């Protein structure tokens, strides 16, 4: 794609807002998108779709950095949720109509382990997955996630507990990753 075309003057204010929003939030959105989507391309599409939705929305995005961020993150999770639902249906149909695609994972242990965990994450609903990755990987406290997503802290905690439970169960079922992770000391 070459240079962007000049847009008609009536739209410039909106486009300026869009690019300002992009500049301020794209990295953050991409980080989340990449952790929710199956591939880099899908993560990029997801980020782009967020801004297309913003451009098409009947109401403007509220001003202020954290309000903007909350709005954009929620839109992103909603879009991902719609995609995920369609994928889930397709996956179910594929599972019924034929043998699963042959998987020949590399024998490399760490790779298998990553794949297992990644597959387990795929089973979580995008919202729950978002809550889990924000908490576990971005080290966001439950209260911060709650205000970002516009839900209560209790709901966040509940999703975290359910998410961990589902993940642990899935990982166990898929066959525990060979070899414990380096710091796996489960005290009890």
């Amino acid at each position, binding site marked *: *794609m070459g*240079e*962007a075309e000049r*847009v008609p003057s009536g*739209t410039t204010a*909106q*486009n300026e807002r*869009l*690019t300002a929003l*992009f*500049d301020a939030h*794209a*990295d953050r959105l*991409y*980080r989340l998108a*990449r*952790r929710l989507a199956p591939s*880099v391309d899908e993560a*990029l599409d997801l*980020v*782009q779709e967020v*801004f*297309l939705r913003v*451009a*098409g*929305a*009947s*109401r403007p995005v*509220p001003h202020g950095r954290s309000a903007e961020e*909350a*709005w954009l993150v*929620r*839109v992103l999770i*909603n879009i991902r949720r*719609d995609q995920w*639902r*369609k994928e889930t249906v397709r996956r179910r149909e594929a599972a019924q109509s034929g043998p699963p695609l042959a998987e020949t994972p590399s024998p490399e242990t760490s790779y298998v*382990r*990553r794949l297992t*965990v*990644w597959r387990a*994450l795929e089973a979580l609903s995008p*919202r729950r997955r978002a809550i*889990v*990755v924000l908490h*576990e*990987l971005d080290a966001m406290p439950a209260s911060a996630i709650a205000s970002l997503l*516009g*839900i209560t802290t209790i709901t966040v905690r509940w999703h975290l507990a359910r998410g*961990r439970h589902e*993940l*642990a169960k899935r*990982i166990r079922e898929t066959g525990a*990753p060979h070899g*414990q*992770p380096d*710091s*796996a*000391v*489960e005290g009890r």
Partner: protein
Amino acid sequence: MDNLTQLLKDADPLRHDSGLSANRERLRSAIAAVRPAEARPSRRAVLPRIAALAAAALVALVVAYVSGVRLTTPVAAQVRFEVRLAEDHPVPGLVVAQVENTGQVIYLHPEALVSNEDVAGAVAVDGTSGFSVEVQLLPGAAERLRQATSAHIGRPVAILLEGRVAMAPTVRSPIAESAVITGAFTEAEARRIAEGISRR
């Protein structure tokens, strides 16, 4: 659970990803070139007219009621009818509403996809658990609804009567020319609603 946290950290795709930087400019210029919503034409222009009609009908009803006239056969007042997309969780900009006679809470999109002037006809239908109202839409509205609902599979769509959510079924497949409002209506209620809906 440190174990799981560690597994997640190992599996984190961002560990093996250069981030947005490689694609930032491409994405940015695509977004800068976005034209503002060439969305479907706003329905706002016709809404005031319908609202006025409905308000007039409502006033007539209230006046009749207050003055002690029992409306056994109401003079077929318009029943304001709308179909809107909805969500089952809060989204900024959407309006919260409760589905009549249930505890279900949904979040309504601000614009009506379909309203009274899109209706070709409506009839009361005898169902297993009371009467329902089947609404047939005009072709333009049917196509609009089909397009909107095909992008809305798995999410709710709200059917509003007089501004209240009569039902909010989850879209299983695209909805087009007809919709059935199921509800344990009595025959008289179903008739009244059907007639009211067809009235523009």
